C-alpha cells in the first residue's frame, strides 16, 4: 500500500509550550483520516507542518516521499487552512483562475477549472463577486473550492464544515465522500458524527501526543460491538438477561437508554439475532440496533 503521509518523531514548541511531541504515524493512499482532539491538542499545528507553513523542531514529515512544503508537492497536495481568506480586492473567479495558473493551467483551462470547483460547492453564481461581498459560509465554501483545483491527490481540510449551515455542511460531506476513492483526505473537525461518516482512519491527539490511531480495516476480529438503543430506560432485568447471551464479553450502559454490548463473534456468529430474540421474548422494545461502536464511544468510552 502506498504511503502518502509519513511523520516521524515530530515535535514542535512555541516558547515554553510543547505543542507536539514524538508524533509518528503513517497514512496510506485512499485513506480518509480524521484528526480529532480537544482544543489546543496540536491539530492545527500538525496541519501547518504538513502544509509546509511551519517547520517541526524535531522529526520530519514527508508527503508522497517529499519533505512537507516541497515544490514537488505543488498541485498534488491541497488544503483548506484554518482562517485563510481570499484577497478582497479581486473577485473569487479571478483568484481561483490565478491559483489555477500557478498550478500550471492555461488561462482558458484555469477559468473552466474555477467554474468547475465553484459548481462543486454550489457557488457558480458567485464567480464574479469579490470575497468581501460573500457571507462567511460562502467564503468558507469558496475556500474549500480552491482545494479542488486541478487534480490534488491529498486534500487536508481543517474544520471544513465549521460555520456552514446544515444543508451546505451536508453538501461538503457528500463531496468528500464522492471524491474519497480517488483522493486521500485528512480532516480535522470537532464534529465526530461527520468524521464517523467520512473517515476510515482516526488520529486522536491530546496534549500534542497521538493517543489513538485506529483503522477500520484492522479491527480486531475477536471483539465486536453492538450499540442498542432502547425505547425504555435500561433496567437491571434487561442487563441481566443480555448478560446471559452466549458470546457476550462485556456490557455497559453508554447512556440512559443506550447499551454497548461487546462480544466474540467466533463464539456466537448470530449474536445480533440472539439480542433481538431476547428483547422480543421479554417484550422489551428497542429503537435501533447498530453494529459496531460510534466513533465517540471508541474514543471516549472506557471499553
Amino acid at each position: 500500500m502506498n504511503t502518502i503521509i509519513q511523520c516521524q518523531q515530530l515535535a514542535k514548541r512555541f516558547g515554553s509550550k510543547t505543542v507536539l511531541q514524538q508524533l509518528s504515524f503513517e497514512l496510506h493512499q485512499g485513506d480518509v483520516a480524521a484528526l480529532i482532539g480537544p482544543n489546543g491538542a496540536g491539530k492545527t499545528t500538525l496541519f501547518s507542518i504538513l502544509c509546509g507553513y511551519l517547520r517541526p523542531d524535531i522529526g520530519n514529515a514527508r508527503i508522497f516521499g517529499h519533505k512537507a512544503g516541497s515544490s514537488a508537492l505543488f498541485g498534488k497536495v491541497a488544503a483548506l487552512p484554518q482562517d485563510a481568506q481570499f484577497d478582497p480586492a479581486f473577485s473569487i473567479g479571478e483568484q481561483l483562475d490565478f491559483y489555477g495558473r500557478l498550478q500550471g493551467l492555461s488561462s482558458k483551462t484555469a477559468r473552466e477549472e474555477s467554474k468547475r470547483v465553484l459548481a462543486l460547492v454550489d457557488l457558480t453564481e458567485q464567480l464574479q463577486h469579490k470575497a468581501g461581498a460573500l457571507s462567511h459560509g460562502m467564503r468558507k465554501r469558496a475556500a474549500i473550492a480552491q482545494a479542488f483545483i486541478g487534480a490534488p491527490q491529498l486534500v487536508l481540510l481543517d474544520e471544513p464544515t465549521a460555520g456552514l449551515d446544515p444543508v451546505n455542511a451536508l453538501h461538503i460531506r457528500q463531496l468528500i465522500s464522492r471524491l474519497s476513492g480517488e483522493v486521500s483526505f485528512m480532516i480535522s473537525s470537532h464534529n465526530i458524527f461527520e468524521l464517523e461518516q467520512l473517515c476510515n482512519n482516526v488520529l486522536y491527539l491530546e496534549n500534542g501526543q497521538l493517543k489513538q490511531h485506529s483503522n477500520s480495516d484492522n479491527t480486531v476480529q475477536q471483539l465486536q460491538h453492538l450499540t442498542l438503543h432502547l425505547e425504555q430506560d435500561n433496567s437491571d432485568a434487561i442487563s441481566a438477561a443480555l448478560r446471559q447471551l452466549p458470546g457476550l464479553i462485556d456490557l455497559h450502559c453508554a447512556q440512559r437508554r443506550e447499551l454497548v454490548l461487546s462480544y466474540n463473534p467466533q463464539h456466537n456468529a448470530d449474536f445480533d439475532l440472539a439480542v433481538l430474540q431476547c428483547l422480543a421474548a421479554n417484550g422489551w422494545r428497542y429503537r435501533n440496533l447498530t453494529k459496531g461502536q460510534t466513533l465517540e464511544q471508541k474514543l471516549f468510552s472506557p471499553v
Partner: protein
Amino acid sequence: MPKLIMTLQHAGLYAGFELRRLWLTRRGLMTLAATTVLWFFLLRYAIAPASDLIASEGFQQMFRDVFGAFGLSQLFAWPVPELAIYWILSLLLLPLLCLFFTANQLCSDLERGTLRLLALRSSRLSIVLGRFSGQMLVQSCLILLSLVATLSLAAWREGGLTLAMLNAAAIIAVNLLLVLLPFTALMSCFSAMVRSSRLAVSLAIVSLGLAFVLLSTFVFYFPDFLFLLGYMPGTQVMQLLPMQGWQTLQHAMLPLLQTLVLLSGATMLLTRKAL
C-alpha cells in the same frame, strides 16, 4: 519542470497580478489618482514656474557662480529645464514615496492568511520575487505617466518634442528605477517581517535613520570606515544629482547589489516565517 523555470514563471504571474491590481482594482486606481494629484501640483507649482526661471540666461549665470563648484551647473545640460527639475524632484522624492507605495508587498496576505493559499502552489522565493517585480512594474507605470506629463509640459513650452528630450526621459526613467530597486527590496524585507504595512513603513524609516546615525557615529570615531556610508541605500542619489546622460549608469552596480542582498534577506525571512 525545472525548479528555476517554475520559479520565474510563478514570479511572472505574481508580477502580472500586481499590475492588474494597479489598473483594475479600487486600491490601484486610488494609487493612480494620488500620483496624478501629486504630479499635477509638482508640475503646476514647481516644475512649470521653475522651468521658466531656469530658462532665463540671468538665472543660469547666477546659478553657475553660486553652485558651479558643486557641479550642479550640469543641470543646464538637460535638453529642457522641465526634465532637469523633474530629475531633481524625483530623485529626492521617489525613494521616500517608494517606502509608502511598496510597503504592502506581503503584509496583508500574511495577516489574512492568503499567503497560506499561495504557498501551497508556489515557493516563497517566487512569491517574494513576484511581488517585488510587480511593485517595480507598478512604479515603472507611475514614473512613465509622470514623465509623459513632464514631457508634454516641455513640448508645449518648446513648441515640439525632440529626440534629445526623449533620450533624456529614457535616461531618467532607467536611473529612477535603479534608485528605487533597493528601496523596494528593503520594503520586501520589512513586509515579510510584519503583518501591517504601516508598521513596515515605520520600521523602514526608523531602521534607515538609526543605521545612518549609528554608522555616522562609528565613522566619526573611525574615519577610515567612511566608505561604509556609501553602502546605505540611496547614497548614490547625491552623486547622481549633478550628472546627466548615460554616464549616470556608472552608479548602477551598487543599487543592483543592494537589491540582490535585500531580496535574499526577504526570501530568507519569509521562508523561515510561520504562515
